[in-house]
């Protein structure tokens, strides 16, 4: 496996990129402006593209260069562009109703990272990988997953929820580059493409929301209960 025997430079580069992505997830958690979310997501995507390229270079997985280019193009350019268009059209710029202040979400996010760390150290120790970059990748993957869920739970604007979903997937993408760089190329391509379809679907739905519900906040969506 790649992560077990890396030269130190590559290992620290991977760690740096992974941790920077995790920090950007916290940026999203700590802000209430949609524009900040979008910028953080864009940078995160570029970091992941960079990570793909780095894994391709150090691990000798040529096809990951393609993944890197496509990640940058789809997640780094196209998705932010589509989301930006939705934001402009909707004329919303921030979360109006927070069910959790950014500061408390940051604290909870930190606790989630600790939980993810405990789980991955435990798994890593059992697999004899303690102290390698694999454990870090697993930690970051799980924490971004949990932070994404936290965002989905406490944010109400439609755009924040879409971005929450994208953070979930970013976490998986980041972790899988390091843990399973040899995953079949087809799979990664289709998952990238899939994401694009999701965002298009969301775009259409958001338009319906505006047209028929008159708001893009899921706080208005509480007719169906019981």
């Amino acid at each position: 496996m790649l992560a077990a025997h890396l030269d130190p430079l590559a290992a620290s580069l991977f760690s740096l990129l992974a941790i920077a992505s995790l920090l950007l997830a916290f940026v999203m958690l700590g802000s209430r402006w949609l524009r900040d979310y979008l910028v953080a997501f864009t940078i995160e995507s570029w970091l992941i593209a960079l990570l793909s390229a780095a894994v391709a270079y150090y691990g000798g997985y040529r096809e990951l260069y393609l993944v890197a280019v496509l990640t940058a193009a789809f997640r780094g350019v196209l998705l932010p562009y589509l989301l930006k268009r939705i934001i402009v059209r909707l004329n919303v710029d921030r979360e109006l109703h927070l069910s959790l202040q950014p500061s408390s979400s940051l604290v909870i996010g930190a606790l989630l990272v600790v939980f993810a760390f405990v789980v991955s150290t435990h798994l890593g120790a059992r697999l004899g990988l303690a102290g390698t970059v694999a454990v870090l990748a697993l930690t970051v993957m799980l924490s971004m997953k949990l932070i994404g869920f936290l965002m989905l739970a406490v944010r109400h604007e439609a755009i924040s929820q879409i971005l929450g979903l994208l953070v979930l997937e970013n976490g998986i993408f980041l972790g899988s580059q390091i843990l399973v760089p040899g995953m079949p190329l087809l799979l990664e391509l289709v998952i990238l493409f899939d994401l694009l379809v999701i965002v298009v679907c969301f775009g259409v739905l958001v338009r319906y929301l505006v047209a028929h519900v008159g708001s893009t906040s899921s706080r208005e969506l509480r007719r169906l209960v019981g």
Partner: protein
Amino acid sequence: MVGALLLILTLAPLGAMLGCLALRAPRACERLNLAAAIVGLAAALPLPVAAFGRSYAFWDRYVLLDAIGAWTLLCTAVVYLLASIYAVGYMRLLDEDGRRLHRFYALFAGFAATMLCGPLMNNVGVYWIAIELTTLVSTFLVGFELGKESIEAAWKYIIVVSAGISLALLGTVLFYWAGSLVLGPTYDMTWSTLRAVAPKVDARLLDAAFLLVLIGYGTKAGLAPMHTWLPDAHSEGPAPVSAMLSGALLNTAMLGIARFLAVTDAAGGSALPRTVVVVFGVVSLLVAALFIVRQEGVKRLMAYSSVEHMGVLALGFGFGGPLGIAGALYHMFNHSLTKSLMFFGAGNAMRAYGSKDMSDIRALPRHYPVSGALWLAGAVAITGAPPFGLFLSELMILRAGFASPQAWAAIAMLVLLIVIFAGFLNHFRRMYFGEEEGRGAAPALRLGGWLTLPMWLALVPVAVLGVWWPQALWSFFHSVAAHP
């Protein structure tokens, strides 16, 4: 031969989808979709026979037909046909001018195509993509009526299910990682490879991966407590769509759980996966029981009944053994038929009385003697009373439960099934024989043949399967249990 059948099965609805988009004439789209459904069922019928005791792989091993997959395909194709017949009558009621009908049928056929592709996927990652695609297509069907409630349901559906299913992707990555520690960084992640490699993998890692996958596909299959999207989506979409969601889509996701269970079984190290599946089954039954007893909406009642039956399926697969698997597969088929019938009846009642509330639906047998009787028979069947197929399958799952280490779950299942039986039929008692509450005029809608024919088509096999249990079926299920 089998390859040709599979091509026909998946290309027929795809062709219908493209045809509907091109033609745009409502009547032509109806017929096209119906024709695709008939062709699809004709192609799906021989598949379980062909897959009896063996499996086929095509296209670089990306496509797989095995016994359990063939069975799920059959269930899906049956529901697709029933729902297509019903859709002809129902959508004419809903959308008189028919300007959006071609879009409905295109989505409907596309939805069927994605569901018919899912069970055929041999690569675990591609299976995940197929399941995600079913969500994306069906979201627009759920929101098709464009009312406030339907948009809300569609939004909840796509958010909850996409978030849940992303956990399944994480679990899939962990499975791949676990395999790559043994097989090297690049290999084909098929179901059989995973089963082969599972015994050599660390049991804890496998457990963690399985839990993630279970939560992920469990969200899609509507297991409580991840079921929150289900009552909304099932109750707000048009009735034929509800039937497809409930009778076909949930099975396709449940299949993933069953296949991953086979992988952890092959590893054999830990009892955790089975126990957790059983616990989810019991929780689903419990939640369904609570919400069924106090339900007010007629389609929501059916939706919670789906949560119940997915719980029963989870229990069947979780108990395992030849009896559990056979019971679960038999239950899957019976549930697909009966739940379609129930949603058709609910759709008819909703249109006839112009209300979603059961309190507005009164004196059904006086106004609709025939279709009312069909619906009532369906209600008796869905609660697991004899002489219908669901009674047999639930009994088998119970027997499997008492023979397994989780006998407590079988007892809980028995109690909760009784509660659901009483609660569910009590609603029907009120709708059929309750005192007239004098709200508005008597229903004027005449139910045409398109609206009642599929109810007959669904009820007759369920009744037959309840009293006649072909030996061939038993040996088929047995072969599934023996060669997962």
